[in-house]
Structures are given as structure tokens and as C-alpha cells.
């Protein structure tokens, strides 16, 4: 399995007429939405990328890997970007001015330009997904659903989050795993981790699942290769940071607990001293958003739910879980379902789950279809937690008056409706669905180990 094989597969894919038609439709939808909507996170990312492209100094507002990618891309296109706007963003003090910046004339071209790499990786994701269904009869359906998926479209092109890029590398890792290319699969998961730390948690799955029923030395080799190749992108991304001079972006330390940037000679992220960016991101993902309980001793909280789940999960994968490609998909579904169900999660993180849920809903029956389609409206209700940033303020590039519009939560509150409780109920309902999915996959894995044929039909009716 080489990269050439993948390229050949993709070349073969775009020779299909239906695929080209839906690809064009998908791209037109994405291009049409991109210049109209914005979010402060996108402006912050643009600030880092443009700063690197113009001043050659680094603002580590996100993973270094995405900043390098966007800096390279936007650096190429600097001549066509409005100079006034680039100057405004590069010299801004961060999020405090983002509402103002997002409403400025000329922002449209920057919004589209920033999202072109997203469109590229989004299309590639669709192409790889339909390849995963090769010969199953679901290729067309999978590609169309991917191109029209409201969750990925909202997160990438309304909201402007780059999670579609790590999602592509996650899909690629799964595809490579299916093709028995474990080394490249590990490398691809390493790229996911360099972009979004959650990818790191999946790297052990490769030696665990691929090494099942293999001799000890093969297992050991798989562990070594997967670990090394998985760590290469992470270390490259993190260590390369020292090659660049850090940009001095002033933070407002009066904004307790939420300030990003320099105060004095120390840099902060979310009000904490910045350390290693990958580890900080991993801690943020695995601990900060996890439910935890305190002991009677007041000085430390020791019990965090997500690491407990992860510990159980790793043992499950090793001793109980399904084998092979389906085992890989199931295990990823189990972990992500449990994460979304039991932890606070940012809306953009739900994109990681989309290819897995899509795969399961087309391949494994009605249960997943129900969850896949039911999760979409609930996801949009969940985004109201971030009202108005994820509702009315998205429209700022289209009309500055959006800054004064009331969002859905505010409108419902004005009418005396329990808006936040509604959001909480919807989110909890989603947790219920996802916990069931997680549990169902676990039972399926258990049945696999017991050599009992999975009786999905009995459970899902």
C-alpha cells in the first residue's frame, strides 16, 4: 500500500460522473456559504497565520501545524487580500476587536480564502469515504451524504473551524488501516494529533487491533512503529515552534481566566501559563472538559471521568473488542460516543464523529441511521449554548446590524420560554443516544469475542 495507490484510487473515483456532479454541487455550496459567515475563532486563527506570513513571528493561538498550513496558504495569496484588513487583523489585540473586524468591508475574500484548504480536505474526505464503501453499493450514498452533511458544513463554513482537516486525516488513517498499511495509518493519526490532540488517544488502537492474535515480536514491532510514527508529526509540530520568534501579543489580564497572550514576559492561554502546546491541548480535551469529583481533601481533585473511561476503553479494546477494520471503527465510535455523552464538548469536535457515524449508519443498520439523523437537529440546538456567537453574530460579514440581533436563546427568554433548559434537555437526550450507541458497540464486541453472531436486528428491531 503506497501513497501512489491512494492517488490512483482517488483518480479512479473522480472518473465517476455522478461523483463529479455531486462534487461540483458540494464545492459550490461551500464556496457560496464561506464568504457570508464568520466567527471570532476564525479571526484569531487568521491573526496567527497572517502574523506568521507577514511578520514571521508566531502566535501560538492554536496548534502550530494548522498555523503553518494557513500561513503558507494565506502567505501565497497575500497580494489579493485587502491590505487594510490584513493590517487590522495582524495588529489587533485579539478577540476584543473581532466583532468590529468581522463586519468590515472586504472581509468576504479573506473568509473564502481561509476556507479553501477546508474545502480541499473536505472533498478529499468525501472521496476517501466513498472509497471505504467500495463494492458495497453505498459509495454514491456515502459521498452525497458527506457533501450535504449539515454538521460539517456548519462547523467548517458557517463557524469556520478547521476540524475538517484532522477529520480528513482520521478518515485517511481508517482507510489505510483497512488497507493493512499500519505504519501510514499511525502517521496519519499522528497528523490528527498534531492538529487536534484527540488523535493521540487512537494511536494505541493500531497495535492493539492489528496485533491481535499475532506473535509477541510482531506485536512489539507494531507498538514501536506506531508509537514512533504517531509521535513524529506531534513532535515536529511542537518542536518547530522554537524555530520562530514568538509574537508579542498583549493580553488583557483583567479578563480573569480568559486571557490569551503576553502579560509581562509570560505568555498565557485561557489565563494559564502556556506550556507545551500538544500536552496543554490534550489536558484541555481530556481533563478540563471532563466531569470530575473531589475528595474530602481540598487541595486536589483526583477522579476525572474521561481518563477513567479511557483506561477501561484501552483494556476493552485489548481483551474484548471486535477485531479488524470493523473493530477499529467500533472502538472509535465507542470512545467518541462516550466522550460526547459524558463530557462538555465544543461543537466543532462533533465533526470528528461524522465519518464514523456515517459509516456505521450505512453499514450497520437502522440504529446508527436514527442516531446519525437525530443527532443533527440536536447538534444545532446544542450550539445555542454559544448564543449569540454561534447564531446571530455569524452573520456579521453579511450585515453589521447582526451585532444587535437577538439570538434564539434571547428571543425565547424574552417570551418566557426556558431556553437554556431546552438546550440542556436536548443535549442530555443526545447523551442518551450516544451512550446507547457506545453500549451497543461494546455488546457487539463482547458477542464477537464469545463467538456469538451479533444480533443487531434483535436489538434495533
Amino acid at each position, binding site marked *: 500500500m503506497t501513497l501512489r495507490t491512494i492517488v490512483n484510487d482517488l483518480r479512479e473515483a473522480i472518473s465517476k460522473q455522478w461523483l463529479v456532479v455531486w462534487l461540483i454541487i458540494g464545492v459550490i455550496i461551500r464556496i457560496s456559504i464561506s464568504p457570508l459567515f464568520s466567527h471570532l475563532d476564525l479571526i484569531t486563527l487568521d491573526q496567527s497565520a497572517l502574523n506568521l506570513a507577514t511578520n514571521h513571528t508566531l502566535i501560538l493561538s492554536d496548534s502550530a501545524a494548522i498555523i503553518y498550513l494557513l500561513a503558507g496558504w494565506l502567505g501565497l495569496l497575500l497580494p489579493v487580500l485587502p491590505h487594510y484588513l490584513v493590517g487590522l487583523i495582524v495588529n489587533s489585540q485579539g478577540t476584543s476587536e473581532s466583532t468590529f473586524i468581522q463586519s468590515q468591508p472586504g472581509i468576504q*475574500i479573506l473568509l473564502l480564502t481561509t476556507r479553501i484548504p477546508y474545502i480541499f480536505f473536505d472533498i478529499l474526505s468525501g472521496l476517501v469515504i466513498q472509497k471505504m464503501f467500495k463494492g458495497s453499493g453505498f459509495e454514491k450514498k456515502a459521498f452525497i451524504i458527506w457533501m450535504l452533511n449539515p454538521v460539517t458544513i456548519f462547523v467548517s463554513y458557517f463557524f469556520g473551524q478547521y476540524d475538517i482537516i484532522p477529520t480528513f486525516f482520521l478518515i485517511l488513517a481508517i482507510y489505510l488501516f483497512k488497507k493493512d498499511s499500519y505504519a501510514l495509518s499511525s502517521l496519519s493519526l499522528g497528523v490528527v494529533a498534531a492538529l487536534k490532540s484527540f488523535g493521540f488517544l487512537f494511536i494505541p488502537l493500531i497495535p492493539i487491533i492489528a496485533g491481535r492474535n499475532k506473535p509477541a515480536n510482531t506485536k512489539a514491532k507494531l507498538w514501536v512503529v506506531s508509537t514512533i510514527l504517531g509521535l513524529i508529526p506531534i513532535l515536529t509540530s511542537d518542536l518547530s515552534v522554537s524555530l520562530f520568534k514568538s509574537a508579542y501579543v498583549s493580553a*488583557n*489580564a483583567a479578563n480573569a481566566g480568559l486571557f490569551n497572550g503576553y502579560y509581562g514576559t509570560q505568555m498565557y492561554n485561557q489565563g494559564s501559563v502556556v506550556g507545551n502546546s500538544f500536552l496543554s491541548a490534550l489536558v484541555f480535551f481530556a481533563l478540563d472538559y471532563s466531569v470530575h469529583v473531589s475528595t474530602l481533601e481540598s487541595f486536589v481533585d483526583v477522579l476525572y471521568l474521561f481518563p477513567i473511561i479511557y483506561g477501561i476503553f484501552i483494556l476493552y479494546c485489548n481483551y474484548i473488542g471486535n477485531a479488524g477494520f470493523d473493530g477499529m471503527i467500533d472502538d472509535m465510535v465507542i470512545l467518541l460516543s462516550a466522550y460526547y455523552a459524558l463530557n462538555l464538548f465544543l461543537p466543532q469536535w462533533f465533526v470528528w464523529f461524522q465519518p464514523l457515524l456515517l459509516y456505521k449508519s450505512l453499514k450497520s443498520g437502522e440504529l446508527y441511521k436514527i442516531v446519525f439523523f437525530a443527532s443533527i437537529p440536536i447538534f444545532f440546538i446544542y450550539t445555542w449554548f454559544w448564543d449569540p456567537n454561534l447564531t446571530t453574530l455569524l452573520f456579521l460579514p453579511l*450585515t453589521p446590524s447582526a451585532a444587535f440581533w437577538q439570538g434564539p436563546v434571547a428571543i425565547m427568554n424574552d417570551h418566557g420560554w426556558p431556553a437554556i433548559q431546552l438546550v440542556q434537555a436536548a443535549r442530555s437526550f443526545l447523551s442518551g443516544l450516544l451512550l446507547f450507541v457506545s453500549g451497543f458497540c461494546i455488546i457487539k464486541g463482547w458477542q464477537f469475542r464469545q463467538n456469538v453472531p451479533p444480533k443487531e436486528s434483535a436489538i434495533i428491531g
Partner: protein
Amino acid sequence: LKERKIILILLILLLIGYGVAYVSLVERLATHKGLVFTPYFEDSSFNTQVGLNWSSPPNTGWSQVTFPGLNNQTHFIIDNEIGTVGVDFSGQNSGLPSGVSGAGFTVNVPNVSTTNAPIILISHKESSSSSALAISYALRDTYGGWHYSTFFPASSQWTNLTTDAQNVYNGTVTQVEVKFTDDYNPAYSGGFQNSSYSLIGFGQSPTWGIATNAQNVRPAEVVYGNAITLSSPETLKVGTIVSAQRDSSLPISLLAGSYLTVSIKTSSVGVSARVVIWTNSETPNVVLLQTYNDTLWHNVVVPLEDLGLNSQNIYMIELGMVILYNTNNPSISFANLTLATLTS
């Protein structure tokens, strides 16, 4: 295969063309000027003010004023951005009928209108606060006539004397004279005394008062180039706060969704800008703590709503600095202070 490649290239070009055309169309259709900051309060005390500090070469515009009968008993020196006059007070001065002893200096000013900038600010400190000692000033009009102020007591602490210059002369001023004398008691014989000046400036009312949590620091309120500057010639320790406070002619309350905008310049990264909005006499709300690693001006926007301030009353605004690392000769400047809302 070649045909496929051509189709692929055409397809890519088509999509790029669509993107360019679509963005152009959106930019034409969505024509708006964007959000703008609309101030509902601007601090005008920085505007139209003229300040004179000692950074000018001593031989440019400054000259010593000597009193008859006091040869070799006075001096005038400029050092470390402070001008100092010294007088050896030895009783009645036989050189003048009034018997007054003293010394002073004059400085050229670029045609300041006391109609527009009616307040004069003199930052001074004397070696003695003897009740015999006084400072005074005079303003020279465009015809060469001098207009004299009353006397103000000497002070052994740094003091910002702010007084109504318009009452002394209402019109265009070309020169200012400052004198250190024993006018309150010409028989005074306290020996050698001196009077130091860190600033002379003209501005509008209201002025800003100085507040600090440190002892014996010399904060200077400099009105120069439309800015207010706080500085100290000494090494200030970690945690020292020096502020300028304004509690007059403010809006009664903040408007919903207000932003505070201000330009800030600091002398080093160890000096943190500190902006406080007092919602009553006992409730300070720190809305800005920010450092810069250069000595350039920075335009700062503070969304007050994000800091929990929305429609509250305003009792006082405080602009100042807090020392993060022991810093020699720290200073901070503020300009263009506004409270504004975003409007479309």
C-alpha cells in the same frame, strides 16, 4: 487520460472562477461600512493642550530670570528632565524696593490660547515648605505685556498646581515665567533653597488628579502631545500603582454594550497599563491590565460588557500603571480616551 486531465483542470478553473465571481458579487451586494465605534464620551482634557517638558535642550526656549541684588546667589539647572532654580535666601534683598529675593526662568510657548486651554499645570517641589516661600507665574501676551498670577505656597512634596490661567490673561500667550521667591516674607533667611519643576502645561478642565499607593514617588502628570503621562524618576517596586483619576464631567452611566478605547504607550514591558472604572466611590472595576514589549503607541479596545460592566453608573475613571518588575524611571502615556458603542 489526457482528456480526463483537461476536464479536471477545466473543472478546477470553473470552480475558481465561480469563487471569484461570487465574492465580487457578494461584496457588491453586501455594501456596508461595517461597524464603527461611536463615542458618547471623549476625554477632551488631553486635547488642545500644550505641554512643555525638560526634554528640550536647555538652551532652546529656556532662560534664567535673575533678581537685582542677588548676584551669584541664584542658579538654574536642568538635569534628568527636571528644571531647578536655587536661591540663597539671606534676608531682605537690598536690590529691590520690596526686599524680595528669588529666581526663576522663562520659557517660550507656541502661542497658547488660554481661551481654549484655560488651565495651567505646574508640577513642582521645593526643598523647604517654609511659609515664607512661594512660587508664582506670569504670562506674556503677543504685545509683550506680562500678566502676573498670585502666589502659591511652596511644598516639599511633588505637587501638581492646577490653576485658572484664563483669569491671569485671556488670550494668546507667547511666554511663561515661573518664579521661586520669599514673597510671603521677604525677611526670610533660610539659606540656600531650591525649587524643581517637572512640567508646565496648559489644558482644559477637568484635570486629572494623581493617586499612588507608594511613598515618596514623583509622579508627573504631563500634558504633552495630547497625552497624559505618568512617570517617576525613581525605581518603583513591584506592585506600585500610580494613577491619574478623573471624577468630574463624566457620563452618569455606561451605555449597554460599551467599549473603552484608549491609546497607550509604556516605557518597558515591566510597566503594566491599568485602567479602572469606579462604579461608585468604593467599587473599583479593573478593566485593563496590559503590557507591551515596545515603546510605541497601542490602540486598545476593551469590551466592558465582557468584564461585567453594562449600564452601571460611572463614578470615576482611573488611568495608571502597575509595576510588574522593579523598574527604573517607569512611565506610561494615555491618549484618545473614549467610551463608545458599536453602531452600524
